[in-house]
């Protein structure tokens, strides 16, 4: 084997993977955004192609290409590239240079998922009313460019942390050790049920769940071009999580894009230097991934009973889940639930791609990208919940089809009999 690759860290660097591009166009053909808008010429063009000209940035010249902003960051390009070009990552980094310090208020707002969550849950009824109140949304679009029709989440009065403080589930026998649960912003404020399901499933399987101090993973800021802020959030998380990983306690989360940020974005896109960066990455697990590993080791409880769902359900593996490069562990888990038949969605992307679809100028693109998935859901029947690992994707699916959408762990918790299957 050639050992040069290991001695040359820079060579593994995202920008330099542009060298591997042979121009075969596979990425462009797989890109869900390029076919629906002329504003985005495709991942190859704005990625490895433009990269040859972008090194000039180091000399303080403005990026000549702005269309990279229309990349949704779904990462399908990186997934299909047979030659190892990190296209999405390259584009994400180019966006930093695009915005530089001139970040629109709208992007700052969308990037501050956590602040919104904190405010939102304190004033939940009021905010939920505003989100559903057309005139307010029209004003928000006019003033800030937040798309009036984009699917805003429903805030909960009680945050997950508040619930956990009172209702922490005890580890059942046989006990297996401790887990640090990374609930992320959505898991704390909007997707409280998902977080409850996750910690119940972990406790059921013998884990004592700890709740580390944490803040937003930084991903929303990163995808809105606010790299500086994203880095400071990332570093704070790494500081706090270091305590757990040094003690060998795995970090598990159910927000698949947030666990991906810990595993990969911090290194590949934000280029964080932190002593525990690699260890945190190595010890972070998506909840389904963690449960699948337990099953491979023969440690997962399989006392599942049938769900109150008739026949087949559709499972959509979101882009951020695929970017973990861990297959679709949820499929292996569903196979353990009696009577559950799962069909894998054939669609590339739901379109929302984090905060992309919230932007007024991108809302229509996001809806067009999601259409093939919506069509599949409609064909499948909107009475059944669609299973999907990412919260914004679930909101988008519901927005696009009217079908309810749940996280896989909610289905597992229900099949364990730990909580009812709430799909609304």
């Amino acid at each position: 084997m050639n050992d040069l690759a290991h001695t040359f860290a820079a060579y593994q660097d995202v920008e330099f993977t542009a060298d591997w591009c042979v121009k075969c166009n596979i990425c462009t053909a797989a890109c869900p955004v390029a076919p629906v808008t002329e504003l985005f010429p495709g991942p190859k063009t704005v990625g490895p192609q433009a990269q040859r000209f972008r090194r000039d940035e180091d000399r303080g010249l403005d990026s000549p290409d702005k269309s990279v902003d229309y990349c949704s960051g779904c990462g399908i390009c990186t997934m299909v590239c047979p030659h190892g070009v990190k296209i999405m990552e390259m584009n994400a980094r180019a966006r930093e240079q695009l915005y530089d310090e001139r970040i629109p208020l709208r992007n700052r707002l969308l990037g501050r998922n956590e602040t919104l969550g904190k405010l939102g849950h304190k004033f939940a009824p009021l905010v939920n009313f505003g989100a559903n109140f057309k005139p307010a949304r029209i004003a928000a679009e006019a003033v800030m460019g937040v798309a009036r029709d984009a699917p805003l989440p429903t805030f909960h009065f009680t945050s997950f942390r508040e619930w956990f403080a009172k209702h922490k589930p005890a580890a059942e026998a046989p006990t297996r050790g401790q887990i640090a649960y990374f609930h992320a912003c959505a898991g704390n404020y909007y997707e409280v049920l998902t977080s409850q399901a996750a910690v119940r499933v972990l406790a059921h399987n013998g884990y004592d769940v700890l709740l580390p101090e944490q803040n937003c993973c930084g991903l929303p800021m990163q995808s809105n071009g606010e790299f500086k802020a994203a880095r400071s959030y990332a570093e704070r998380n790494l500081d706090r999580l270091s305590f757990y990983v040094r003690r060998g306690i795995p970090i598990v989360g159910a927000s698949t894009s947030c666990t991906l940020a810990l595993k990969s974005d911090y290194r590949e896109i934000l280029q964080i230097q932190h002593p525990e960066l690699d260890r945190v990455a190595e010890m972070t697990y998506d909840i389904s991934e963690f449960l699948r590993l337990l099953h491979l080791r023969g440690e997962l409880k399989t006392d599942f009973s049938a769900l109150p769902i008739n026949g087949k359900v559709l499972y959509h593996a979101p882009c951020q889940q695929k970017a973990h490069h861990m297959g679709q562990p949820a499929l292996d888990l569903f196979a353990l639930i009696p009577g559950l038949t799962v069909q894998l969605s054939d669609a590339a992307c739901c379109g929302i791609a984090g905060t992309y679809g919230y932007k007024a100028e991108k809302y229509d693109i996001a809806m067009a990208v999601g259409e093939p998935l919506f069509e599949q859901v409609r064909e499948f029947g909107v009475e059944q919940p669609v299973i999907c690992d990412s919260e914004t994707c679930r909101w988008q699916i519901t927005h696009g089809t009217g079908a309810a959408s749940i996280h896989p762990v909610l289905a597992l918790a229900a099949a364990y009999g730990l909580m009812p299957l709430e799909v609304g």
Partner: protein
Amino acid sequence: MDTDVLVVGGGVTGGGIAWDLALRGVRVVLAEMGDLATGTSGRYHGLLHSGGRYAVRDPESAKECIDENRILRRIAPEAVEDTSGFFVLCPGDDAGYVEPWLAACAAAGIETRNVALTEALKRERILNPRLAAVYEVPDGSCDSWDLLHALQKAAEDTGNGRFLTYHQVDSFHKDGKRINGARLTNLRSGEEVDVSCAYVVNAAGPWAAEIGALAGASFNMKLNRGAMLAFNLRWVNTVINKLRAPGDGDIFVPVGTVSVIGTTSVKTDDPGDIRVERWEIERILDECEAMTPGISRARILRSWGGVRPLYDPGPGGDGRGAKRTFSVLDHAETDGIEGFASIIGGKLTTFRLMAERISDTVCAHLGVTNPCTTATTPLPSPTHVRQHPHALRGRLSELEHGNTPGALICECELVTAPQIIAALDGGRRGENSVTSLNDLRRDLRLGMGPCQGGFCAVRAAAICHDHLRPEAAESAAMLAEFAERRFGGVRPLLWGHNLRQALLAEQIYGRIIGLTDAPPAVQAMPEPAAPPAERRVNGGPRPRVLVIGAGLAGFTAALAAQELGAQAEIAAFGMGRFSLMPGWIETGDVAALAASPEHPYHHSAEYVASGLGVLDRAVGLQRIGGLAVTAIGRQRVVAFAAGGALHPLTANDRVLVVGIEEWRDNFARLAADTLRAAGISAHAVSLAMPHFGGNFDDWPLDFARWLDHPECRDYLIEELRTRLYGETAIAFPAVIGLNAETRQVIGDVLGVAIIELPTLPVSVPGRRLFHALKARLQAGGGRLTLGLRASVLELSGGRVTGAIFETAAHGRGHLIPADAVILATGGLYGGGLESDYKGAVWETVIGLPVANVPPAGDWFSEPLLAGRPQPIHRAGVRTDSQLRPLDDSGAPAAENLYAVGHLLAGASPIVEGCAEGIDLATGAAAALHVIDALRERATARRTAAS
């Protein structure tokens, strides 16, 4: 033609002299036998010396460099980039050189600054972190083309200067011992031109001795050639020099979008000796590793050589030992020839000073007293001089913000269709000399990027064909010649990325375009076969068969195993080769190929039928056993159509070849002309599709999706109907819907046969095939996961128990357990094999031994399109008769590990016409062996248990 001074040589020195004299009011004609800067000036590494390189050994040169460096920054700011420079002391180099070097720099007036290693690494992250010292000097980088074009503009703007390119000096006119003119030949028109003048300046660089001899002057030169490599990316933003006596591979220069490393030093007698030998490339890369470890893994765009025109005043040092300053030879003094002087030696950085000195000599002879003003006269901005084809950022910006820039033809160098058409029109009107692809390359940089014309040359050839209307064979010959030249230029660099790119070009030129000389002979036709029911898994849990790789071989293996009762899973890093497939199946002459014990068919020929059966059940094969038509109307032997529509043409056919007007891959006219030349009645039409606004990069798929809408399909049908006059077939680019029904309906409604011509990637027929195979896999309970790169196999007791894949979590793998593993990772193109500049080839998952690796430098020795196997084609993994790969001892690497497809040694798939055949045969064979072995094992276990 009458002038005061004739300058011979269109490098920067000649250009500088013309400018200098013109500023002094002297009329000048410059004659250059090629284009400007095609000699040493254009074959230069781009370094604007601070003088640090020469400080110790050649203080005079060092002083000249630093003075001229400062002047050039003032007068030509747009041709010079202030990159600054580092001198780095590499591990193992003599630390004793540092003190004398610092002292010498100080003496020459070169500022040096000690840079902390941490600061240096922060600025240039690829530097060796074990450097012993780093000093900063005022190096820069310089674009010699920009510089020379600015000199031409400045000289011509005075009204005194005139530049004649492609004008060769044949002889000098003499009046006794006085030169008073020259006879030139215009190499483009063949016309002879007489120039009368009062003085001739010989600035012919390495050709100076030849020009001197024409005039009767004799002097010696020490020609010395050096090699340089340009990387695809701008790896450094600062010039990096090794802090030691000048040697090989010790300068690294950022120039525009690329970075250049050099050089070597080899004595030569031939001024045109611009060879680069393989050892030079290895030497440069080896040396450069000390400055920037790992750099040899980076992609090199191009290697080239230049000749240093050093002067030999008598006994003295050679090569790098020779003085790098310059000499003015007044031949009145040295040879008794009046009106003639030569300028020899020097370097690009000091060209202005050289011009000043010799112009002083000339002016003294002419009685001109005006002083030199070039040190204080700014040169015009190169952006105003001409289109500035080297500033690619400008093109990117134009493309993004320009008004309707037109189709993007060359994606690497951002050349658009309107630019090409304008250049060709200029050639037709005699305004320029652009008549060929090669001219377009020089004029617009077409084909100069990483893909080396793999895509754009075909598009541009079709545009040339449409505009210049030559015979089809001439267009094909021009395209073939261009492709050969581009790949000839990178031949010494064909490993890793560039080899992969060349293998892609083979696929495009060989199969999609069909330019290879000898298409494979017609073969005996195999038949698709049903799955052998007797070899199914008999009861028990379904065995888990893991296939690594999602190409045709991987899918065939997975589906064949699934049909026999296995639980199949495909895990792949990226999508397979489907995006390059032309829509048909080539199997080659199976029996003849299988006769060679080296060939993958040797152990799998009897399974071709099973593999075809798997494919037939997934997509439905159309039997052809004849000629298919390629993208530009050439023909190639195929066995079946799969994913695409074919119709073997006969002399009775009349073909309408259809192109889409706004699509950059519109080869219709070239295809029709080619078919006609082959004796088939054909004519071309181009349709406008005003309602379709697709993405230019994703045109084939976009169009196919669009056409699947019935109203769009019907629109096309109506467009076609009005253009049919009794044709029997329509040849249409292979974009007629992702849905097979679309082309069915079009053919039925119009009552003609539909022939799909393959397109440049991405291939729609390949996409149809991929979808069909994936759907069949999933319908049978199988799984396909992309984005999984296998890093290691899990082994236990001589058996593979699963594969571990790289995940986003740094360092933690994703395990997929399996009862058997089939490697279908592809060959050197697909990523199953990798190679490096030292000539090593390795298997990427578990490091299986690779057989048939030719000696380094002999990998790609045949012409690209000769239709003969390249030696590297046959490199691959060897297996036993059950397709289990062999380890170093010649035994199977594991009991239940198999290898299929292009990973296997011994085939040259495109030349032999068996690209799909070996995938199908080995995929099906491995699946059957896997199931047989697992069935036997299960039976043995049951027997043991009872």
